[in-house]
């Protein structure tokens, strides 16, 4: 099935061997798949970078966690009188999200780097839709980020996570969704910003507050009430809480850690849906900007 139109003129027509194949949707999907595959190849070839990215989450989990644990009275009754569990167990979901967040945002930002490197222009001239290029890059980036975090997930049982393969797989799926969403937010920031330095400064400024206000490190219920809108608007709040509830590791302390909407706690599926919707929204806006870009 050939959809190629060759001008009926004196220009040199492409030789038959190099005519595009397949319908238009097939072709767009193939482009997405090829870009995804490229990110996977890059991941496999940048082991040093992966190791460095994983270093700080590992330090948090296996040094800061146990260290703080000794200061906390974990024998005291927790919320609702339940056993609180260790701080390390509390920390684990937050650390998983941290491990996903950095590479995901950075993958989104790779669009800025590619623009400076000329790599972007080389792909922009390909006969596929620009949104396809964006989706392919972000799918690849999200998968790479989720896979990096999966290395931590495997160590999860050491930090109190039930060693249940089904649960680990489910968590991986949720982390992929979260990674996709964060990659899209990174991509949105990237298409709005022209310089790599600006993007990096923006990333550095935003990530720490977002982690602090997400319940990743401590229950946000203890924070002053005026921060509540920020906490509820923070996408990481939903990501961390969803992973924490799926992993079924209970929070430390007399205050809750998850988001509460007017006295109602949204179910895990809704929390993940919030992330996905946010990611799709970022995708639409980013794609519109991307399409108009010179």
């Amino acid at each position, binding site marked *: 099935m050939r959809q190629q139109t060759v001008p009926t003129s004196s220009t040199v027509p*492409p030789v038959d061997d*190099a005519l595009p*194949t397949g319908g238009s949707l097939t072709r767009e999907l*193939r482009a997405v798949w090829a870009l995804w595959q*490229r990110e996977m190849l*890059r991941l496999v070839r940048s082991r040093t970078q992966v190791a460095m990215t994983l270093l700080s989450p590992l330090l948090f989990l296996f040094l800061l966690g146990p260290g703080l644990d000794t200061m906390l009275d974990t024998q005291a009754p927790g919320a609702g009188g339940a056993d609180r569990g260790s701080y390390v167990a509390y920390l684990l979901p937050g650390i998983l999200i941290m491990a996903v967040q950095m590479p995901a945002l950075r993958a989104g930002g790779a669009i800025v780097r590619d623009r400076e490197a000329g790599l972007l*222009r080389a792909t922009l001239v390909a006969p596929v839709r620009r949104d396809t290029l964006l989706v392919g890059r972000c799918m690849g980036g999200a998968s790479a980020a989720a896979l990096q975090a999966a290395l931590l997930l495997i160590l999860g049982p050491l930090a109190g996570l039930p060693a249940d393969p089904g649960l680990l797989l489910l968590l991986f799926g949720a982390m992929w969704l979260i990674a996709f969403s964060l990659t899209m937010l990174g991509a949105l920031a990237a298409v709005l910003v022209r310089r790599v330095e600006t993007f990096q400064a923006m990333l550095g400024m935003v990530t720490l507050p977002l982690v602090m206000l997400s319940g990743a490190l401590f229950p946000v219920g203890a924070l002053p009430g005026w921060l509540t809108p920020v906490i509820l608007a923070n996408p990481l709040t939903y990501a961390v809480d969803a992973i924490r509830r799926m992993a079924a590791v209970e929070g430390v302390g007399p205050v809750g850690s998850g988001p509460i909407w007017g006295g109602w706690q949204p179910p895990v599926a809704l929390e993940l849906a919030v992330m996905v919707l946010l990611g799709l929204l970022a995708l639409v806006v980013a794609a519109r900007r991307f399409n108009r870009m010179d």
Partner: protein
Amino acid sequence: MSAIVAESLRKAYGGVAAVDGLDLTVAPGEMFGFLGPNGAGKSTTIAMLCTLTRPDSGHASVAGFDVVRSSTEVRRLIGLVLQESTTDGDLTLMENLRLHDHLYGLPRRTFPARARHLLDLFGLAERHDRLARTLSGGMRRRLEIARGLLHEPAVLFLDEPTAGLDPHSRADVWNHIHALRRDRPLTVFLTTHHLEEAEHCDRILVLDRGRAVVRGTPEELKATVRADVVRLNTADDARAAMRIRRDFACDATVDAQGVRVVTENGAALVPRLCAALDTPINAVHVSPPTLNDVFLHHTGRAVTEGEYLR
């Protein structure tokens, strides 16, 4: 029908015209050189012809398709090699080519043969499974040209194909471009700011501040400059200069290095000078006009050194 046509093409950035009413026609199979200093509008023109930038006004068509209305068809029929390096250093040569193949939706069955043929043609076959970042600048540029040809384009755009390369790699890239043109009929549109490189072209257009200053074959272009410099060292320079001014109606002056003659065609003048002068000639040197001379002649400004090096 022409391979490339542009009519009153215009593009401004922030009120400043980068390309200002450009007309051009490139015949199929022609090697067309786009010559001008950096900032003259060469890259903007390429971006418009390659559908990456929309013209503010005017029309352009490539391989018979309008660059705005039929951009997908145009993209299918052009190969683009940019001046920045655009290969993925983390992928092997073969993987870089395969990515391109996927993005262009080309048949997987014929990929190995097409890729191998091009890697052979560009002298990269032995390195096909190396990472692209291990290639030298010249080899990387060759890989980019090979990639730009994988989908058998009708028109190949080369934006400063030898920018940032040392003279040896530069000559090497040119050898490959010539070999390529013997291999298949192909229209090539290239930009450069080296007049020596423009020599390779069938026709040249000189661009300045977004406008076409002059166009023609390399010979015509140089003839318009009339700026060959012939240097003579003779037994009596003053007498020789006087005779040249009188008998040849040329601009001849004497300075510390001998007689300096500015003429339209230096090579043709030398035998006539040798025959006519009665003073013994010790040495003759002819230098062709440079881009600076062409530029100076048509715009009254010199292409500064700073713009040459970049």
